[in-house]
């Protein structure tokens, strides 16, 4: 087991190196003057500028491999460079935004997994009955809703009309408290920090601001989990051991919850894991619509402004999350399914 984990972790640098090289080459396809747009962002700035001098100052004209080497050398020294989009060092820009992304992902994961699995089981148990059809239609509608449409709908209904769930991270008064010297930041996650500081009012305010994004993410994401659970459950229900259990005269609830559901949830674990990993990589649209701090919109902005230090840094970070996340999913198999041995 330990060896398995170590072996997987050993591959991590190789994976990251590969990703970064590939990405750098892609950015390198743009000419030096195109990449200069990061530094000169409006025509007014062209006045009195020798663009060639700027290209030289930022080393944009050097051979790609030299530029990559320079970047890699800095990274190995722990310096991911300066983020022109984040307006601070890349590493700190990422680390400041990650708690917000993590918080949203965790809050969204709960209803997604809960609704996805429980409704999935329910649909399977009512196979081809109106409830099954109804749930499936409901899920497919959510699944096919573009998140920017549903997000805007949630914003307009729950904020515009009802005034319940405002956009942003916190209200003005709550932010004043959080930014005051008496409020200690332990995790960077506002809800958790508020509880640790004993500020229940701030906690509720943070929750109110989380509700809209969580609602949006839940509806657009849970459908996939529902379908996986449903089909997996249907398959299990046809298995011999379920028939045996029923033949033994076991109570139907025991059959379903103990014998069938547990086995049906094994593939669901993978999908749930991947959903959470996906949420951790940031949710550009939801972050933008609800004006929340997060990694997704940060990297998207970096990409549009060709801020290569941020793009590279962000990608390395996602790579890290992906590899570690998948490792966790694999490890969880060993616990869920005793037949799986990680050697």
């Amino acid at each position, binding site marked *: 087991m330990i060896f398995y984990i170590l072996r997987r972790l050993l591959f991590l640098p190789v994976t990251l190196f590969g990703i970064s090289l590939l990405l750098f080459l892609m950015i390198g396809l743009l000419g030096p*003057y195109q990449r200069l747009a990061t530094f000169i962002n409006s025509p007014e700035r*062209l*006045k009195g500028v020798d663009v060639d001098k700027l290209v030289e*100052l930022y080393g944009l004209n050097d051979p790609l491999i030299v530029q990559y080497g320079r970047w890699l050398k800095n990274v190995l020294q722990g310096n991911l460079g300066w983020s022109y989009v984040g*307006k601070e060092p890349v590493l700190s820009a990422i680390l400041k935004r990650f708690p917000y992304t993590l918080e949203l992902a965790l809050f969204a994961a709960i209803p997604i997994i809960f609704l996805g699995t429980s409704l999935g089981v329910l649909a399977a148990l009512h196979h081809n009955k109106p409830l099954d059809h109804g749930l499936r239609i409901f899920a497919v509608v959510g699944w096919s809703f573009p998140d920017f449409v549903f997000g805007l709908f949630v914003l307009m209904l729950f904020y515009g009309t009802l005034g319940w769930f*405002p956009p942003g991270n916190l209200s*003005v008064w709550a932010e004043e408290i959080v930014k005051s010297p008496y409020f200690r930041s332990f995790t960077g996650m506002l809800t958790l920090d508020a509880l640790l500081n004993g500020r229940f009012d701030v906690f*509720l305010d943070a929750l109110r601001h989380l509700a809209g994004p969580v609602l949006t993410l839940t509806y657009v994401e849970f459908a996939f989990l529902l379908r996986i659970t449903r089909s997996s459950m249907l398959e299990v229900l046809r298995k011999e051991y379920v028939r045996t259990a029923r033949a033994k005269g076991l109570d139907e609830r025991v059959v379903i919850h103990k014998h069938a559901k547990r086995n049906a949830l094994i593939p669901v674990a993978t999908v749930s894991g991947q959903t959470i990993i996906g949420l951790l990589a940031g949710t550009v649209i939801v972050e933008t619509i609800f004006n929340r701090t997060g990694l997704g*919109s940060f990297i998207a902005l970096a990409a549009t402004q060709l801020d290569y230090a941020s793009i590279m840094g962000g990608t390395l970070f996602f790579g890290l999350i992906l590899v570690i996340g998948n490792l966790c999913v694999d490890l969880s198999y060993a616990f869920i399914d005793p037949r799986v041995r990680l050697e």
Partner: protein
Amino acid sequence: MKRFFAVLSLALFIFLWVPFAFSEVKNPDTYIYLAIGEADTLDPHYAYDTASGEVINFVYENLIAYKGESVTEFVPRLATEVPTVENGLVRDEGKTYVFPIRKGVKFHNGNELTPEDVEYSFERGILFDPYAGPMWMLIEALFGYETLEDFVQDKIGVAWSEMVDEEGNLKSEEYRQKLIDFYTTYIDPAIEVEGDTVVFRLTRPFAPFLSILAQNASWSAILDKETCVALGLWDGQADGWWKYHNWKKEKSPLYEKAIGTGPFKLLEWDRTQQKVTLVRNEEYWGEKPKLAKVIIWGVDEWSTRRSMLEAGDADQIYTPLQYLDQVKGLPGVVIREGSRLTITALHFNWSVAKDSKYLGSGKLDGEGIPPDFFSDVHVRKAFSYAFDYDTFIEQVLKGYGHRIPSVIPRGLLGFNENLPMYPFDLEKAKEEFQKAWNGEVWEKGFKLTLLYNTGNEARQTACEMLKEHIESLNPKFKIEVQGVQWPTYLDAYRQGQLPAFIIGWLADYPDPHNFIFTYYHSNGVYGTTQGEAFRKFAQENLDALIEKAIEETDPAKRQALYEEIQKIAYENALGIPLYQPEEVYAMRSWVKGWAFNPMRPGEANYDGIWKEE
């Protein structure tokens, strides 16, 4: 179970409780403005965008400020008088300006303002002169050069990069004395403390000088010397000044710190939220602002901004014209208007780079255009006749725009709406096309690409309208419309590949020179993109006039000179001046005291506003 429900309903009550009170002003002491994006840097000598200027504008102060909505009249700020010829503070035929410095003014950290701070602020900026920064304005005004490096090279005779390496170290000791002498001979005497005054000495009269110094121009903000030196900025010494030249943006400690004398103090710049918070400066020497706090917050999504305005959680939001209908008529929301000094024009490249991918076949054979296609005045005139100016302003800009005879926007000296303009006249356009290239254009046809900078629907529509009308003249005329991203534009700009393109310009300072030079001078930012043939034309016909107009101090004579330049531009159809847009500002009706100034970076006068139903 009962208790559980009681707790639950209580929680729900708190959770959902929102102060639903439209009669009541939300956050009465705090002004929340929702912008797009955020400041670039708070170093006044690096900042060159309106978002940065908006913050700097209220934290720092300048020697003088614009009077109300005017861009030609000034009031004193950190100076106690505005220099004029009449009060004897402008001398030597406009080459010397004297500013008496106000006493008893304190910086936000408690230090007292002195004339030395003023001298230091300008000298630091000029020596710093970062690439792509705004300092060229002062360098041009005071010394007649575009960059400090050009200035140094011209006086010492050695290129900057030969003398100083990238870290700011001398490449050879022999240059030390030369650079010290450069400072003591040219920079130091140009801005000097004399008693309680600071004197600026220009090498030639420069008409817009006061505009470049006025409030709203962050490059002329006054810094505290003591604080700056302590933070590691230029130490004020002649020896070693070159180490402080052209730092990268992030290296300047003033990047995120701002200690000025202004009516507001910088409380925080939260870059994860694109949010700047300013608080009232309780020790301000002038009239204190009524607002206790100002929040300038980048909310990039329009629907989010609109919802927050509607709910009253925002007091004012950035509103692009295409969304105006969505906020017009919302209860509690008012729309105010203002015309900034910005124009949009279409320009032609008289000699496109031969490797340009926008030329088609590169010949006049109906499948492309030759690189010098636009060097024929008839082609340019034909294009000028083929644009439906009035319909465009009426329909596309919804009336929020003005027609302009040349690149000078209304509100500036030199503007005259009676100057000749090309009417929309397809018959005349046809005649001109028939004359172009000895009739070859009409006979063989052409195919070309019109380019605009993306992100602007109005510009795209302008291109499409032009395409429609020109193609309707002759089936052999083919025009493609293509939006280019800013990076691509920049690249093609550098390589001289753009045959015809629409792009705008926003005034750096309110003077016609800023527009005329940019578009019509052979060294202007857009002048250089119009090809070698255009530059030759400009050198022969325009450059001398433009130079003469800037040195002239009599406004009537300047007006005449600028009209002459504009007539040359008209006769030669140098470009198509499309429009000057009018801007709209959506805000809550409880915003009182909001005023507009065309030169203000940002969208509100936070020092004058208050909230009241």
